[in-house]
């Protein structure tokens, strides 16, 4: 048979047609499956290939003070963002970018860790870049295909250091925060700026707003080709603005008058509602330094500073309340009926008091003789209060003080607050000092020493109750916020007046704080305190100086409560009291429309000139005595 006979050729041709048909059939089926049956999936895939979500950062809510003044707002800034891509190429891009901007190795590692974790989200390399960096990268746009520079609102704080401890500061969200339940996955992503301290942290959820989303098309190298119009842009929502009870001008005033060389705290409350008019802790820091990511050097120096500028003394500092506490003992004594306001203690003050085999000193070695309650408060007579404490007895004193709430937090709207330390029962001594309390423990406790430490905030709340009717709402920063838990001293209103009479004696002629607190327009009531602590008892440092008080027009109720503590300030009357009076005067003058003046107290006046007329007229007897 001929090999190439037409018949055998045709036969073989059939085999070839078959082979060809099978192979082409396979291809056709493959295309049919891909393009007809499963086209939807691949279309989706093509979209996700080239469409990227980009967040539109929401401007953070502005913060206003009680008079509507803006104390924190936003200015336009730039963020440098990197579209996600293969880790190797991201690493290469970051390394290349580090020629033009500061990116630490840790930063690169954490960004890559984030990339492997979240994959499709853009990486924020710098949430607030400096303009030279931005322009350097813009000029080299083609070298950095994935780099995307966006406008991003940047936080700006007014008032600088003055309001630092109120406002706190913002910073980039950390990896730990991102995984914590406080920051929901829906709202937060890497590179976002969140509140780190103060009101910024406390009201993060209100201030943050909701970031928007837009869609862009990118090419295979991650270059943004343009906006993708098919999906609607979600513009997001700016954060809500926040109104504070703070009076920023008062805050700045306090910053001006507080002695720069000393550390301490001032808090001012509005007796009306417990609103915080000022909350000041010295030293502070400038929150603006934190906005662009604080430099390592500055951060280290802030942390290494032994004056501890990041420490908010108002809510975190714990100090022996010293004589400011005597009002609490007096209140408890009246309440329990162990004394009456006019009653005098059987033992006269001769500069010390003997209990058991020990002698307890009064602060004034000359002694105060026989005092009634108001006089004892006015003179801050320790001997009177030793006897009062003994009359109350250790257990009732512990029980009532605890009931009143001296070992609780106030519940201020700040992220952190220290709890006051006060023994609630006798076991406290055994647990802490390893011995059962002796009867004499009640003596230091009744003059505000011993195992008793309170925050300036707590003392302020206590004096708030004294300035009111014995109740004190929780001091709050946010306007209109009411924290239900109102503190009630449960004291008889008649007794309240007796206590205030004592406070009036402190600032009256002859009282411990008269000259530093005498003001032209306002009546000041208050109590000094000289808080002995470990270092001062050993003779290494001066005691802390307290002044807790209230002020208002002569013919009305107190309109401001101010508590001042100056660490190692030595004297409540000489150092702390004038700060309190000047704070109150500045606030009240503005409240009542009287021009402010930096010469305020009697002391201020006599340092620069003659005794002011208003003082002569009010206290002629004192002038006579001085002459």
């Amino acid at each position, binding site marked *: 048979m001929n090999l190439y006979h*037409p018949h055998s050729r045709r036969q073989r*041709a059939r085999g070839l047609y078959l082979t060809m048909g099978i192979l082409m059939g396979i291809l056709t089926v493959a295309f049919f499956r891909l393009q007809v049956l499963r086209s939807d999936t691949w279309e989706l895939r093509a979209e996700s290939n080239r469409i990227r979500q980009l967040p539109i950062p929401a401007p953070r809510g502005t913060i206003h003070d009680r008079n509507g003044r803006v104390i924190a707002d936003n200015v336009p800034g730039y963020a440098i963002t990197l579209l996600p891509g293969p880790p190797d190429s991201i690493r290469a891009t970051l390394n290349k970018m580090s020629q033009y901007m500061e990116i630490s190795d840790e930063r690169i590692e954490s960004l890559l860790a984030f990339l492997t974790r979240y994959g499709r989200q853009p990486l924020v390399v710098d949430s607030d870049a400096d303009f030279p960096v931005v322009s350097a990268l813009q000029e080299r746009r083609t070298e950095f295909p994935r780099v995307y520079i966006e406008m991003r609102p940047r936080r700006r704080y007014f008032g600088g250091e003055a309001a630092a401890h109120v406002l706190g500061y913002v910073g980039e969200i950390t990896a730990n925060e991102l995984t914590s339940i406080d920051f929901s996955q829906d709202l937060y992503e890497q590179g976002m700026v969140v509140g780190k301290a103060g009101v910024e942290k406390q009201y993060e959820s209100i201030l943050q707003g909701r970031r928007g989303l837009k869609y862009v098309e990118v090419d295979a190298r991650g270059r943004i080709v343009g906006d993708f119009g098919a999906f609607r842009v979600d513009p997001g929502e700016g954060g809500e603005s926040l109104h504070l009870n703070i009076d920023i001008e008062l805050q700045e005033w306090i910053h001006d008058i507080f002695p720069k060389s000393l550390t301490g705290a001032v808090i001012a409350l509005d007796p009306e509602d417990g609103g915080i008019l000022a909350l000041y802790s010295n030293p502070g820091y400038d929150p603006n330094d934190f906005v662009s990511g604080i430099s390592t050097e500055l951060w280290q120096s802030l942390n290494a500073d032994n004056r501890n500028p990041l420490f908010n003394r108002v809510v975190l500092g714990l100090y022996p309340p010293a004589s400011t506490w005597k009002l609490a003992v007096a209140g408890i004594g009246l309440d329990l009926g162990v004394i009456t306001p006019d009653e005098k203690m059987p033992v006269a003050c001769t500069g010390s008091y003997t209990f058991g085999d020990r002698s307890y000193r009064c602060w004034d070695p000359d002694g105060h003789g026989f005092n009634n309650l108001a006089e004892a408060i006015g003179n801050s007579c320790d001997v009177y209060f030793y006897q009062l404490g003994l009359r109350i007895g250790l257990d009732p004193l512990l029980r009532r003080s605890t009931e009143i709430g001296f070992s609780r937090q106030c519940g201020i709207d700040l992220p952190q607050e220290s709890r006051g330390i006060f023994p609630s029962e006798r076991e406290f001594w055994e647990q802490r000092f390893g011995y059962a309390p002796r009867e004499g423990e009640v003596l230091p406790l009744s003059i505000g020493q011993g195992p008793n430490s309170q925050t300036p905030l707590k003392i302020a709340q206590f004096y708030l109750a004294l300035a009111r009717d014995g109740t004190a709402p929780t001091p709050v920063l946010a306007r209109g916020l009411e924290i239900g838990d109102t503190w009630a001293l449960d004291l008889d209103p008649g007794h309240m007046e007796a206590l205030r009479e004592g406070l009036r004696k402190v600032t009256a002629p002859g009282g411990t704080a008269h000259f530093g607190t005498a003001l032209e327009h306002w009546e000041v009531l208050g109590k000094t305190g000289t808080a002995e602590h470990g270092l001062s008892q050993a003779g290494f440092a001066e005691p802390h100086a307290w002044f807790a008080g209230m002020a208002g027009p002569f013919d009305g109720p107190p309109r401001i409560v101010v508590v001042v503590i100056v660490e190692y300030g030595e004297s409540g009357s000489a150092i702390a009291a004038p700060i309190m009076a000047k704070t109150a005067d500045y606030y009240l003058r503005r409240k009542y429309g009287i021009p402010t003046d930096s010469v305020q107290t009697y002391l201020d006046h006599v340092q620069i000139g003659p005794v002011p007329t208003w003082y002569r007229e009010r206290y002629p007897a004192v002038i006579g005595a001085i002459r």
Partner: protein
Amino acid sequence: MTRQLTKWLLEPSLVLAVFALTCFGLAMIYSAGVVHIPNDVTQNAWIRQGTWFVLAVIAFIVVVRVPVRWIEWVALPSYTLSILLLVSTLVVGTGVGTAAGVKSFIQIGSFSFQSSEIAKIATILFLARFLSQRKDPLNSVHDLLLPALLVGLPLVLVMLQPDLGTTMAFGGILFAMFFWAGTPVILLLLIASPVLGLMLSYDTIIWSGYIVALVGFLYLFRYRLLLFESIGVVLANLAAGTVAQPLWNRLAIYQQNRILVFLDPEVDPRGAGYQLIQSKVAVGSGGVMGQGFTLGSQKRYDFLPEQHTDFIFSVVGEELGFIGTALGILAFCFILGRLVHMATQTPDPFAGLVVLGIFGAWLTHIFVNIGMTVGVVPITGIPLPFVSYGGTFLLMCWISLAIAVRVAHEG
């Protein structure tokens, strides 16, 4: 008119179909250059391809007039020359563009060409001459040995470049021509069996089962084969299974990856699987109607690799949809079918063998190229005849066409 055409083109329907396909290819190359960030290479590729097209048509007109005797005469020298070229390619060859790592091109001045393209047609001619002198079918392994060597020599040289795609084309040539020369299908399958053995050796159990099946098969057909042939086939399979591992290890990483990715592209979607996934995304998102000529987004935004050369058919899929791909496949079927038809019509063994060699080469190119865009075949750098960008390839395809038409009509 028709007679005029027949006189000029000899096989008007085939030549016009190829002409139309080349024009279509030109349009697709133009479209492949329409990207959001234009670059000179892809943007002007269609103009260069057009120039080559003109050259190719001129070459066609010339070659189609060359007497078959001349073509027969030129077979041996051209084969010898192409072997020499392939050897020198291995020594002085360069890579081009994305295939920079391989030695496939010979550069003369600014002109570079792929010697394996010449080797393909030369091998076809030479093998056709050799086989056409036989009067008996190739019935035994012994008969096949010498012709297999003729193809094996250039095949191995091309494999060393390494150019897996063209190697496969040589395989296609070999099988198509052997088949036309009357080799029983069983024998062809047995020859191909070591390749299967090689592939199956990744799993010892499957491989053992395969060897047992092979031995049983040989026993059933023991009367059709000599004993030593059967033993040879088994030994070849055993050898293939044994060398599989060392051979695998000798493959370049990118070649290993291409095979692994063929099995599962998602193994490495950013790396080796990238091309395949992007191609499938392009083709799949084309749907039935396609995104429109020049409008494919995968192509426009650079996701598609090698869009004007090896993955040109992905552009077809993305922009013209299933209608485009189905029509494209149909056009290729027509062209291949005409070749078979021509071979069937011509009584001359040499002519039939030449046409079949070209058929085998083109079928391999078409199946492998189109198949790889949708993951039916592992990705190998192999162009699509008449459509892919590439000057010498287009020229040689047209010359092959001319030779096929010429020998079929004169023979």
